[in-house]
């Protein structure tokens, strides 16, 4: 258990005469025992920032505190002692390929000063924790990505750390394995009371396990707060873009071309705001017809955020009034350009319309479909 605090942290690199400011004045507070997430596109400075916590990157300015203690200038034996209490899990696992699973973990035990006689028992204990005790003598090359990451997590936990830093720890894994690793990290966080700082560009990770989240862009934290609050009411353009890509839904161009006249509108709303009664009220009061064409709901923690594409048709004045009614009640209101949507990408014309436009990292996790079913029936409208 530990509190991590960064105060006005800057990291500047000098490479080949060029100066790169990777982190520009970040303030951050990760609470005792929570999972603190940092999201942002690649190149935002997330990796550099998380490395200042165990001083793999030393801040060029600013201070790093762990449990109130300023560690920024720690060196030598004190620095090694600190690092033993801060586990680090990497995107690429970073296991020593020519050593067995057991030897990889023993490396950390040796670093932590464990006696040789205790190694085997401790190694087995750690491997049991991550569910791999039968692979102690395997080489990493014989393991799947998820198994490698489990070994890396076991290694990171070898010296009973109070903090676990995860740098894109699930980004090299498929969706199902990602869910398994997240569940494991969640369990470690709860049962071992380890504060986790997790950086990722994947919102499906963020919504799953982050208690607090910071959004990073160009070396700065542009928005932070409780995960649901940040993602349900994004304020900064970067947050909006991340959330938009994640929730984003598109209509098949062929469908758009065959639609009757009317305004196409995309609505983003808090799932507990009950949008459907509002829509039927508006339709009745303004004498317009509102067709739900497409929808998606994602859960951030236990709370849903939804997005709907609706077609509002009727007399011009009535439609305008209806749109005004709706605009005030949703998080985000966007009138879509029909011509642009209808032109679309012919190559994708035949596909299901629920893939995000252009966003390579956007897919709807299969594991979410069950719990989404009750909220997701709107999709039927497209079929």
């Amino acid at each position: 258990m530990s509190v991590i605090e960064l105060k006005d942290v800057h990291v500047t690199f000098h490479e080949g005469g060029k100066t790169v400011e990777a982190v520009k004045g970040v303030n951050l507070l990760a609470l005792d025992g929570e999972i603190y997430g940092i999201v942002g596109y690649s190149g935002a400075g997330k990796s550099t920032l998380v490395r200042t916590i165990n001083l793999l990157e030393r801040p060029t300015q600013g201070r790093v505190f762990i449990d109130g203690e300023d560690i920024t200038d720690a060196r030598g034996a004190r620095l090694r002692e600190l690092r033993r209490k801060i586990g680090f899990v990497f995107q690429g696992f970073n296991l020593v390929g020519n050593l067995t699973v057991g030897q990889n973990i023993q490396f950390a035990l040796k670093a932590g000063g464990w006696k040789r006689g205790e190694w085997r028992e401790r190694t087995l204990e750690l491997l049991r924790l991550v569910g791999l005790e039968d692979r102690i003598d395997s080489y990493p090359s014989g393991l799947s990505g998820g198994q490698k990451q489990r070994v890396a997590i076991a290694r990171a936990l070898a010296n009973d750390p109070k903090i676990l830093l995860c740098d894109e720890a699930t980004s090299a894994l498929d969706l199902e394995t990602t869910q398994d690793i997240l569940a494991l990290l969640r369990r470690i966080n709860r049962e071992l009371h380890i504060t986790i700082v997790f950086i990722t560009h994947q919102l499906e990770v963020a919504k799953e396990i982050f208690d607090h989240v910071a959004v990073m862009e160009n070396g700065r934290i542009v928005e932070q707060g409780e995960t649901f609050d940040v993602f349900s009411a994004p304020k900064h353009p970067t947050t909006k873009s991340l959330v938009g890509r994640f929730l984003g839904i598109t209509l098949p161009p062929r469908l758009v071309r065959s639609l009757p006249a009317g305004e196409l509108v995309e609505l983003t709303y808090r799932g507990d705001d009950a949008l459907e009664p509002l829509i039927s009220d508006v339709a009745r009061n303004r004498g317009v017809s509102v067709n739900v064409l497409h929808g998606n709901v994602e859960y951030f923690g236990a709370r849903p955020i939804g997005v709907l594409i609706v077609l509002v048709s009727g007399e011009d004045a009535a439609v305008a009034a209806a749109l005004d009614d709706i605009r005030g009640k949703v998080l985000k209101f966007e009138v879509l350009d029909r011509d642009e949507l209808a032109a679309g990408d012919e190559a994708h014309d035949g596909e299901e319309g629920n893939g995000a436009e252009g966003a390579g990292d956007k897919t709807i996790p299969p594991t979410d479909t069950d719990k989404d079913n009750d909220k997701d029936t709107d999709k039927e409208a497209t079929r």
Partner: protein
Amino acid sequence: MTTWDIIQAHLPEALLETLYMVVVATVVGIVLGGLLGVLLYVTESRLLHANRAVNAIVGFIVNAIRSLPFLILLVVLIPVVTFFVGDPYTPTGGAIALCVAAIPFFARISESAFAQVDPGIVEASVSTGATVPQILWGAVFPQARPSLVRGIVITIISLIGSSAMVGTIGAGGIGDMAIQYGYNRYETGVLAVIVVILIVIVQVIQWIGNRRAKALAH
């Protein structure tokens, strides 16, 4: 004397001298060159113990010795060897010259083997709180071992080549024999036998090295 007589009379001794020179230079080269390689690697790495001054100085010395073609190095070293062992025109004199060449050669070979180790592994090792020696022994060496074995093979084969040059100044070994009989006395048969023996030795060393390197990589 027939070709066969010459071979019988001189080849075993020449081979032993070459073996002696190559083994001494290989052992010294691997130990001292390897240490320099570690020093170059560690002082280059931001995560381990970056030290630009030490890296630049060691790097300069290594490069300086490596700039000299072995034959020139040999001639330059004659007074030095004379000072230490008296007669430079002996296998021991040759071995010393070979050592001087082998150390910087293997320093660069081993440095490059270490540098090929994924920096992520070093990062992960540093993150466990391990000391630099623990990181070197526990992570970098195991990971670099296959490349190191291949590097040792390259070093040995290169030293066999250089050891023949030692023969040209009359310091003994198989090169000396090739010059004396094959070149000065036109004993083509002797030369042919030496060529065949060299080819066989190099092939065998390469084959053993490849097998070892493969066995060490997982």
